[in-house]
């Protein structure tokens, strides 16, 4: 436990939460602008997903307070989700060759 949690007060405080909120809004606006810039699909996907993962991490860490919970909780929740989601991508290459797989 960190010292601030021991006295029962929530970590961060209003200013931290407001800056997280502002960062989330700024990243959303960057995403909207990106949608109207001609980029290759792959580059676009990488940037959009990268920004979304950062936004999700900010929400989970600060709004959902996971950064201030015990490490064992983080290790129980996050790797499980990442591993199962990665396993789902096992099927994904099929989508690129679905037309060749189709009968007849």
């Amino acid at each position, binding site marked *: 436990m960190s010292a601030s949690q021991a006295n029962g007060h929530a970590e961060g405080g209003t200013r931290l939460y407001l800056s997280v909120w502002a960062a989330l809004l700024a990243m959303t606006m960057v995403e909207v602008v990106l949608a109207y810039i001609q980029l290759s699909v792959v580059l676009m996907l990488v940037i959009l997903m990268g920004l979304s993962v950062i936004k999700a991490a900010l929400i989970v860490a600060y709004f959902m307070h996971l950064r201030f919970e015990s490490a064992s909780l983080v290790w129980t929740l996050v790797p499980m989700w990442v591993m199962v989601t990665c396993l*789902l991508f096992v099927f994904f290459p099929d989508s690129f060759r679905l037309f060749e797989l189709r009968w007849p």
Partner: protein
Amino acid sequence: MAAAGVNQAGASLWGGGTSPYAISSKKLGMWLFIVSDALTFGTMLIAYSYVRVASEDWPTPFHFWPSIIVASIMTFCLLSSSITMVMAVAAAKEGKVSSAVRWIWFTILGGVLFLVLHANEWRELIHEGLRPFENPWGAPLFGGTFMALTGLHMLHVTIGVIVLGIMAAGLKRGRYTADHVEISGLYWHFVDLVWMFIFPLVYLLSVDRG
């Protein structure tokens, strides 16, 4: 983060510490629900991407006005309702019940605004001819994936609004504690988080560049 392996009581986890996660069982339950729900949404987003990659002529029906502007406003509503939820949890923890209830009502307002804008968008798209398995623009499965994804998310927002309404009413009467507010806040932030993936993947990758 806590020091490794030491819980609130100071006993080692390996020595049979009583509360390995140092949180209430209700909160752990909500976290486990959230992580399984995150898998559901992750699966649906992957399925959507799969169908999209495997289809020819994927529709791009989202014009800058009104679709993208309105979807951005919806994102703003959800993000802002998250920050008001944070304020509600903070107020509830400090024992300021009426302040917490007020912040919860602001959160509900953000959620309801989101739902109204989203339902209106569905109505317009359906009016333009969008159906689960056909549409006037291209790949027929667009409707099915769009409606399944955003529909399930809308259902989550609706449930969140109802839960928060019950919280606001119960908190006033002293039926619920700050813990309950925090746990419903966890759910609300999760609904916000899911939208952070639906918005770029469904909307921003399907903009109509004219």
